[in-house]
C-alpha cells in the first residue's frame, strides 16, 4: 500500500427494502476515509455505525469461510469480508447478489435458495446402511478423502449463481453449486447411488445439460473450486448415462 495521504473512498450502495413499496430502489453514496488493512466488512460496518444505522448487509464469520457476505463489488460477485479496499478504485459500487430473493439493501436470501437446491438435488450422502458406531470405521484411500474434501469446500455463497448468465436467465437452473454437489456425492464411494440415480437429478436442461460452459462460476468462486473440470466430468458421465442407459 502507498504511504501517501489516505484516500477518500466513495461507496455507491444499492438501497431497497422490498417490503416498503413507497420507496423505490436507489443508489446512495457514502464517503469514508480509507484506513490501512480496511476490508469491505470494516468499511460497511463503519458506514452503519457512523453514517447510516439502517443499512442492511450480512456478515457472520468476517473471515471468508461462512459464505454470508457475497455481494457484487464493482460488477463482480465476491466475498465482501475478505476484499481489501486497497485493491479497489476509490469509487466502489456495491450491489446485492442477483438471482436471489432480496431481503434489504445488500442482504439476500441465499440460504433459502440453497436449501431448495439441496432438497431438489437430494444433496446429501445416501448411506448404504446406518453405521455401527462402536466398530472400526470403514477404510478409505487417503487420496480419495482428499479428493472429496476438495469438492466439499463449497461454502454455498451463491457467487457462482450470480456469476452465471444461464442461472440469471433461467431461474430453475441448478447452477455450478448444484452440479458440484452432485459431483461430490458421485465421487464418494460411501454414497449408495449410481449414475442412473444422479441422471434423474441433473440429466436435463435445468441440470448439467443446461450449462452453456460460460465459466463465470469457475472464475468467481471464492473457494477456487475446480468447477470447470467437475462440470465437464459430470457432463461426460451423464451423457454416457443418457445415451447408454
Amino acid at each position: 500500500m502507498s504511504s501517501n495521504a489516505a484516500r477518500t473512498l466513495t461507496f455507491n450502495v444499492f438501497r431497497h427494502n422490498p417490503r416498503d413499496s413507497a420507496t423505490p430502489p436507489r443508489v446512495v453514496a457514502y464517503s469514508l476515509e480509507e484506513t490501512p488493512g480496511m476490508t469491505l466488512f470494516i468499511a460497511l460496518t463503519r458506514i452503519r455505525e457512523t453514517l447510516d444505522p439502517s443499512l442492511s448487509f450480512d456478515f457472520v464469520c468476517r473471515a471468508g469461510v461462512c459464505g454470508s457476505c457475497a455481494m457484487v463489488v464493482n460488477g463482480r460477485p465476491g466475498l465482501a469480508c475478505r476484499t481489501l479496499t486497497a485493491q479497489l478504485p476509490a469509487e466502489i459500487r456495491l450491489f446485492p447478489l442477483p438471482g436471489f430473493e432480496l431481503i434489504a439493501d445488500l442482504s439476500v436470501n441465499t440460504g433459502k435458495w440453497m436449501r431448495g437446491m439441496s432438497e431438489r438435488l437430494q444433496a446429501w450422502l445416501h448411506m448404504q446402511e446406518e453405521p455401527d458406531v462402536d466398530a472400526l470405521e470403514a477404510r478409505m484411500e487417503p487420496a480419495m478423502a482428499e479428493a472429496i474434501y476438495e469438492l466439499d469446500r463449497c461454502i454455498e455463497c451463491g457467487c457462482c449463481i450470480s456469476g452465471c448468465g444461464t442461472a440469471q436467465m433461467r431461474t430453475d437452473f441448478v447452477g455450478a453449486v448444484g452440479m458440484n454437489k452432485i459431483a461430490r456425492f458421485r465421487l464418494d464411494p460411501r454414497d449408495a447411488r449410481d449414475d442412473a440415480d444422479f441422471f434423474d437429478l441433473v440429466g436435463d436442461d435445468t441440470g448439467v445439460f443446461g450449462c452453456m460452459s460460460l465459466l463465470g462460476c469457475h472464475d468467481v468462486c471464492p473457494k477456487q473450486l475446480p468447477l470447470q473440470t467437475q462440470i465437464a466430468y459430470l457432463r461426460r458421465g451423464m451423457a454416457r448415462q443418457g445415451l447408454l442407459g
Partner: protein
Amino acid sequence: MKIIHTDVLVIGGGLAGLRTAIGAKRRGLETLILSLVPAKRSHSVAAQGGMQASLANGIKGEGDNEDVHFEDTVRGSDWGCDQHVARMFTHMAPKAVRELAAWGVAWSRVQRGDREVVINGQRVTLTEKEAAHGLITARDFGGTRKWRTCYTSDGTGHAMLYTVSDQVIAESIPVHERMEALALIHDGLRCQGAVVRDMITGELSAYLASATVLATGGYGRIWGISTNALINEGMGAALALETGVARLGNMEAVQFHPTAIVPAGILVTEGCRGDGGLLLDNDGHRFMPDYEPEKKELASRDVVSRRMAEHMRAGKGVKSAYGDHLWLDISNLGAAHIDKNLREVKDICRYFLGIDPVKDPIPVRPTQHYSMGGVRTDHRGESPWLHGLFSCGEAACWDMHGFNRLGGNSVAETVVAGMLVGEYVADFCYSKAGQSDLSPALAREFVERERAGLNALVAKPGSENAVALRARMEQIMTDKVGLFRNGQDLDSAVVELAELLARSRNVGVRASNLDANPELVLAYRLPRMLKIALTVALGAQRRTESRGAHFREDFPARNDRDWLNRTLAFWREGDDLPSLDYEALDVLHMELPPGFRGYGVKNIVEHPDSAVRQAEVDEMLAAKPDRYSRQSALMPFKQLLPARYRARNARLDDTP
C-alpha cells in the same frame, strides 16, 4: 398472532443444535430448528483444526484410549470440570467421529509407510502401520499426550457442519432461518417454547414446544476483538438468564486463543503449532521452551496465551500500529504441507494480511476465543431449575471443560452432546412431565411483552447511542476482564458495566420500521449483552483464585480448598446485578483427584479431601486387573448414558 406447535424446538443451527434435532426426530418427535442465519453459516463452520477422539489409528496415537483422553480433558480443565460428563464425552467421541465418517465427512486418512513431519522444530520420519492404512488419522494439538485430533485439512468444522446439516435436510427437519428467539416462554417451572422474531419481516410469533433446546453458541462478541463469528453475542445465555430461574455456570471461564492474526482477530488454527509451527519474538527467538521446557508451543491454550502475554510485557513483543504482537512461523513445514493441510490458514494470510505463510511469519496475539461458561445443565443437558429447557454445545455448561477447554474438544463436544441430548430430550418428551399441557395464553402474554418492548424502542429517538455503549462495553471487557485479571480492574468493570446497562434503557431507534432493521436489532440485544458481560465480570471479581483460563494476578494460586466449585448465576427480575451462588465439586467421587497440571511452578492450595481420595484411588487401582474394571470401580458412569451408546469402542490394537 401465529402460534407454531412442535414437540422439540431447537434454537441454534450449529453442530450441537443440528445433531440434537436429528436425534429427537429419529425418535419420532416433530422437531424444528431456529437459526439467526442459514444453518451452514453458523459459527461451527469456522472450526479449522479438528476434533478429538481417541481412535489410536496413527503411530503417534498408539496406546491412546478413553482413559488418556479423559485425563487430558480433566487436567486441561484444571480440575474444574464435571468428571462424569468428561467420562461420558471421551467414551462417546470415537462414536461421534465414526458416525460422521459414515454420514459423509471426508476425514483425512492414514497413509501406510513413511512420512516426514515436524516435531519440536525437527524433521522426523514416522512410519505408519500397514494395518492402519485408510483409517482416520489424527494430528497433534496442545495439552494432549497423544496425537488425537481428527481433521479434514484445516476445514474440519466446515466438513462436519455441512455433513450434519445435509443429514438434517435428508431427515426433512425444517430449519427456520433468519429467525431470532427473543424470550423463553415459561411459568417459572417449565419452559414451553420461545417468542420468535422473523428477522426479515419483523413478525413475532410463539413457538410452543414440549422441550426447548438452547444450542446458541458462545458469547465471545462481548469482547471487542474475538475469533468468534459476529453472531456469537451470547443471546442464548441471555434468554436463559432473563427467565430469572434458569442459571448460568462458570461464566467467568473464558478462553483466549494464542494465535489470532493482528489486527483482524481471525484465528489461525492450533493445527499450525500441532503440525510443528513455532512462536517467535521480536528477536526471532523461540521463547516458549524458556517458559515450558516440556510442552513448549503445545502447552495448554491458557498457558501458552499467558506466556505470550508475559513475554510481550517483558518488552519482547513486535511493535505495530495495532499494538504488540508475536510471530507464528510455519515456514518450516514446507509449501506442500501448508497447501494440503493448512490451506485456510494460507487463504487467511493472503487475503487479510497480504503475506504468504510459506515464506513469511504470521503476526499473532492471544485473543478471546471460547466460552466455557453457559447455561448450566445436568449431564442430560437439562436445566435443573427450569424443566423442559435443555442446552448443549458451546452455549451450555454441562461442564466438560471446567476452566479451560482443550483444542479439538469443542466440536467433538457439540456432536457428542447432540447425540446424547437428542436422546434425553426424547425421553423427556415421552415422559409424563414432558406431556403436560402447554399454555397458548402464556405464549400470548410473552409475545405481547416482547412486542411492547420493540414498539417502545422504535417509538423514541432515545438519548443514548447504542453503538457507543457497545464499544465501551467491549473496551471494558478487553481491558479489565481479559487474560490477566485483578480485583481493582474487576471492581471498576462491574460498576461501569452496571452503569452502561442502566444507560442502555435510554437507547432509541431512528428508523421506525419493525422489519429488517439492523439498528433495532442492536438496540434490543445490547441490554442482553450487557447482562452477560456483567455476569462474566462479577463471577471473575468474586473468584479470588486462578484456575485454568481465569487468572487473577492478585490471587495466582489455584485454591481448591475454597474454590473447587462452579459459579452459578441468575438474574432476578428488576435487579441491577446478577446473583451468584456456588456448587461444590465432589472430590470424594472424582476418578482423577485434583493434582498438579505440570505447567510453571506448583501453586495450589490443596483441598482437604484430595489426599484422602488419592489414597483411595491408588488402592483401587492396585486391586483391579484391567482398565475397564478399574474405571468402573473408580467412577461408574455408563448408567448415565442412553442404553444404545454404552458399548465399548473398537480399536485397531484390541486383542480379539
